[in-house]
């Protein structure tokens, strides 16, 4: 009899605790209700225009035909991937993409750090302000105008640069139609445009450094150069690592718009990158499945590199993104 009562009470408490758990969740849901309303517009847009296209990635494994729809089209397995790997364009696009993006990182990653350190050394307030406003300014020029300016300045017959070089008696080669110059044009014009802007984040990190470090270094007789080497640089390292990881994550996706605009039939051997090829195959030649397969390959490689660099950075410097 007694044991029955006990078991009954156990059942009761079990029911109660179960009830209280669901009611707790319900309570929490109710409490977050208004917050979900605030999230709703962005969730709907993301589902429609970002997550729904991910379902469309299926056509990379199919022979897509618009009449049959995504699901109705026949499966093709890895046919399109293999077609891309075996094509002549594979070597070319991979080589150019890696070339441009490694070059970009090599030049475009350290220079903003140097600029931030330089700016940090300027002690005249007014001059510093002018310097900052000027170096940030080109960032707001649109890619279109930037490319227009590049074409105007580098024009072989009457561009500004060829005129300036002409003053000192050097004849400029036609760099716009030479594929070997393409990556340099791309990278250095990018440096001109974005070096100031990219340095802002390092300037913020520099301004957060405790001034007592510098005072202590001055007491010990350190020169300005030594302070940079032994205080500024080590303390910028964590920020730099995060940005490097982010950059590495887009190793295979170089600034597509600029490449497309600067491309011409003569420099194609140096300027055809994966993303421009995806665009041409997909939206100009209407080979939807092949284009999607190449794009997917690109995304997968990017993610693998991102995870790899993140893992390495965690091991080496104990800073990571994820």
């Amino acid at each position: 009899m007694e044991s029955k009562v006990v078991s009954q009470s156990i059942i009761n408490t079990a029911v109660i605790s179960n009830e209280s758990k669901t009611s707790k969740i319900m309570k929490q849901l109710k409490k977050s209700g208004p917050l979900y309303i605030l999230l709703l517009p962005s969730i709907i847009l993301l589902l429609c225009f970002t997550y729904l296209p991910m379902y469309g990635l299926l056509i990379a494994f199919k022979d897509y035909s618009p009449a049959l729809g995504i699901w109705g089209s026949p499966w093709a397995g890895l046919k399109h991937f293999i077609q891309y790997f075996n094509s002549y364009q594979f070597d070319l696009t991979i080589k150019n993409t890696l070339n441009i993006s490694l070059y970009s990182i090599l030049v475009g990653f350290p220079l903003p750090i140097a600029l931030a350190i330089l700016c940090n050394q300027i002690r005249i307030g007014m001059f510093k302000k002018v310097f900052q406003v000027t170096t940030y300014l080109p960032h707001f020029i649109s890619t279109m105008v930037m490319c227009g300016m590049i074409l105007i300045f580098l024009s072989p017959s009457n561009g500004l640069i060829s005129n300036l070089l002409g003053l000192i008696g050097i004849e400029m080669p036609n760099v716009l139609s030479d594929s070997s110059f393409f990556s340099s044009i791309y990278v250095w014009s990018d440096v001109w445009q974005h070096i100031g802007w990219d340095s802002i984040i390092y300037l913020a990190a520099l301004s957060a450094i405790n001034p007592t470090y510098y005072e202590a270094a001055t007491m010990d007789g350190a020169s300005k150069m030594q302070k940079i080497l032994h205080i500024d640089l080590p303390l910028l390292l964590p920020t730099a690592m995060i940005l490097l990881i982010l950059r590495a994550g887009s190793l295979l996706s170089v600034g597509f718009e600029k490449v497309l605009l600067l491309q011409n039939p003569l420099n194609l051997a140096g300027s055809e990158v994966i993303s421009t090829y995806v665009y041409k195959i997909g939206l100009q030649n209407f080979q939807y499945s092949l284009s999607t397969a190449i794009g997917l390959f690109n995304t997968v490689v990017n993610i693998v590199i991102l995870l790899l660099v993140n893992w390495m950075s965690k091991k080496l410097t104990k800073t990571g993104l994820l």
Partner: protein
Amino acid sequence: METVIKNKFNKKSKLQKSWKDRIFDISVYGIAIMMILMIIYPLWFIVIASFSNPADVSNGNVLFWPKEWKLDGYIELIKQKMIWRGYLNTIMYTLVGTFIALIVNIPAGYALSRKELFGRKYLSVFYIIPMFISGGLVPTYLVVKNFGLLDTFWVMVLPFAVSAFNIIIARTFFKTSIPDSLWEAAQIDGCGTIRYFLTMVLPLSKAILAVIGLWTAVDLWNSWFNAMIYLSNENLQPLQLILRRILIANESILGTSSGELASELRRLSEMMKYAAIVVSTLPIMCLYPFLQKYFNQGVMVGSIKE
């Protein structure tokens, strides 16, 4: 005796130091001035070239100051109807697009900043995934097409209004600068979440509204790729696509002709290039120094790590 030696030693090292540091300072300012010139000169050249005789520009006679003040490029440019239409379209896309982006991203950032949001962790992942994975060009194009958005005004302002990056920045801002006690006080007074957000949080968040609004506006003003893919109707084309025809494709929008008229047309279209660059870039360039404060603030907010 000892102190004298010490003093002497100190004096000497101080002198040496200042000598070293002086060279350092001189090179800092030297490099800085050189950089300013390297950035300003190309911009200055575009401006003076737009006012000069194209023959002088291409012969290299115009280097620091315009020669033979001429406004032909500007006059020809404003005669072109498509420039005006492009300008108007871009202004509309920028205004409406910025407005939509703020409506979508700011509340999302706020909601994600609240601890009591049920399933916050999973929702964050939901927002972060698109930063790294996307459907790619063709699948996205097909979805936009199936929604019937091709060749509409809305394709420029609605589908890609969500920015995970801006949401994260907004979230960080709300987390760090709106105290929890404010919400507790509002709650005691019987204020609901949405009313609290609209009437108390938003007025305190002008800085983040300005930052995200400005960033979005600049992006929209400069964007052209979506327009190129999704819009084929010429009446909807933004300014940047018109610029593409003038600057990149070198299209002779003034028409073609032969003989003497042809060289005159070539001359005018050269001038128009410079004028087009000035006219399209001027609004942002002029606004920027006044708004710089907000831009910088944004980067700072974004750089605060959790």
